């Protein structure tokens, strides 16, 4: 990959690394805003998560415990936001700013002891020299449907087969479908979904050679497993 793309691949690789915190933070913010709560405290939650993750990983020697502590710290601050803006119906904007101050304060006070401390344990790179957190951020793939095929029908037909994927929303409704691939979804699920998709596209009138998608997917998965 590096050989063929040269500088471009390096730039892309670094951009992906830099985008990981943005993507995770944005996914959280979107979830909150969809529920009607503006969260201006993301900055504070990230800072508190960073110091909690670092100190837990430093103390236990396990990056996974660090990750859990970071998630816990961010979630705890989010709970404070929820209590004030949902339960007490306080002003969301001011509350979010208070949380940013609180989180930056916590990270500064708690983290001062760790300034310059080396962290012995790190995540091993799992794929393409990226750590697992990067892949947590890549949660789903959205696909454009071919002209004349209704994305919502693709979703409905797959559900008849017991495979649950999601359609597009608002302007994208009917134009795309989305396949999740995080959490409990493994390679067998992915292959099943792609196989089912081939069948459904054929029934809906878009001719696909059966097995083409499966072959491509298996090749990608085999390559990843070899890295």
């Amino acid at each position, binding site marked *: 990959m590096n050989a063929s793309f040269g500088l471009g691949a390096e730039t892309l690789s670094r951009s992906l690394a830099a985008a990981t915190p943005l993507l995770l933070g944005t996914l959280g913010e979107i979830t909150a805003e969809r529920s009607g709560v*503006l969260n*201006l405290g993301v900055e*504070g939650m990230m800072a508190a998560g960073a110091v909690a993750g670092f*100190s837990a990983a430093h103390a236990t020697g396990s990056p996974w415990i660090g990750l859990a502590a970071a998630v816990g710290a961010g979630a705890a601050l989010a709970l*404070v936001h929820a209590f*004030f803006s949902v339960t*007490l*119906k*306080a*002003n969301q*904007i*001011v*509350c979010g*700013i*208070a*949380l*940013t*101050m*609180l*989180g*930056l*304060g*916590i*990270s*500064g*006070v*708690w983290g*001062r*002891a*760790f300034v310059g401390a080396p962290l012995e344990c790190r995540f091993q790179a799992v794929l393409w020299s990226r750590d697992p957190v990067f892949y947590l951020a890549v949660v789903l793939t959205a696909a454009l449907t071919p002209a004349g095929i209704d994305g919502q029908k693709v979703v409905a037909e797959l559900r008849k087969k017991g495979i649950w994927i999601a359609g597009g929303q608002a302007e994208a409704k009917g134009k795309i479908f989305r396949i999740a691939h995080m959490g409990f979804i493994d390679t067998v699920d992915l292959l099943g979904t792609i196989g089912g998709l081939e069948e459904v596209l054929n029934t809906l009138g878009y001719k696909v050679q059966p097995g083409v998608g499966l072959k491509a997917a298996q090749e990608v998965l085999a390559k990843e497993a070899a890295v």
Partner: protein
Amino acid sequence: VREGVALIIVKDPLQALSSIFLGSFASAYGFGETVTKAIPLMLAGTGLALAFRGRLWNIGAEGQLLAGAVAATGAALSLKDLLPGFLMVPALFAAGAAGGAAWGLLAGWLKSRLQVNEVIGSLMLNYIAAEAVQYLIYGPWKGATQFGFPYTDNFCAAATLPVIAGTRIHAPTLGIALAAAAAAFWVLRKMRFGFEVRALGGNPEAARYAGIDPARTALILMALSGGLAGLAGAGEVAGIHHHLTYPWAVSSGYGYSAIIVAWVAGLNPLLVVPSALFLGGILVGGDAIQTSMGLPASAISLFNGILLLSLMGGEFFARRRPQRSPSPLAGEGRDGGPGHK
């Protein structure tokens, strides 16, 4: 070390609190510093109180303050040989107000024309303003006489503000800040525009139905609150630094602290004055506890966050306080009757 920090925070909060407030109010020097820091907080806080009263969530006072500092610096550097000395200070303040207002109007224009949420728009403009200041001090405005430091050249004597002897309190800006708070109070109370702001803040739908133009009011509010923050920026460069310097040195977060100031004041411009002194005291006391108790600077950020949250929790209970007897008619329902809440 970590345990030590945690212990101080858990074990001796009262000592920390008394250190904060003794440091900022109990000595002449400390109080002078408190008032110095309260000046920009008063100006920006007054503007934010006005904007928030009209439900216009201007989070951009920080950037508007910096824009004012940039405009005032531009005026000081370019007009130094053109204007008679006595006109310099008014010109600086006018430029600062105009710069801040323009930066505020940018967010207002994005909101009224392009439906960009003013929270996001004004917040993003803060970062742009800080980067622009950095660009100027490292680039075209870098002073020839500053030994390579990223500052502009120092202002000429006519463009620096007089201070109260023995302190850093730049008196002209303090005077403007007090006058602005009083004027904003009067505008909200007595003027047609103030009524429109309060109507929009109370019930936007009803205000619209009554013929109040929300887009126009939002633009005026953004210009006013941005202009006040811009005056604060002019005061900082002309009264404290005497040149444009790093954005975090020009402002040190006044634009964000001013949000707390406005909130502590209950969005009443007159109460912004004591509220700004209170927050100024916390900022100065924060410096004091860094030396006396060995706490990091961010302890103050922690303190402010908790302060703001406590305030909002308190408001919840204040809203729900049982009414004694709101009107003679409601008196019948007292003592657990149906009208009693």
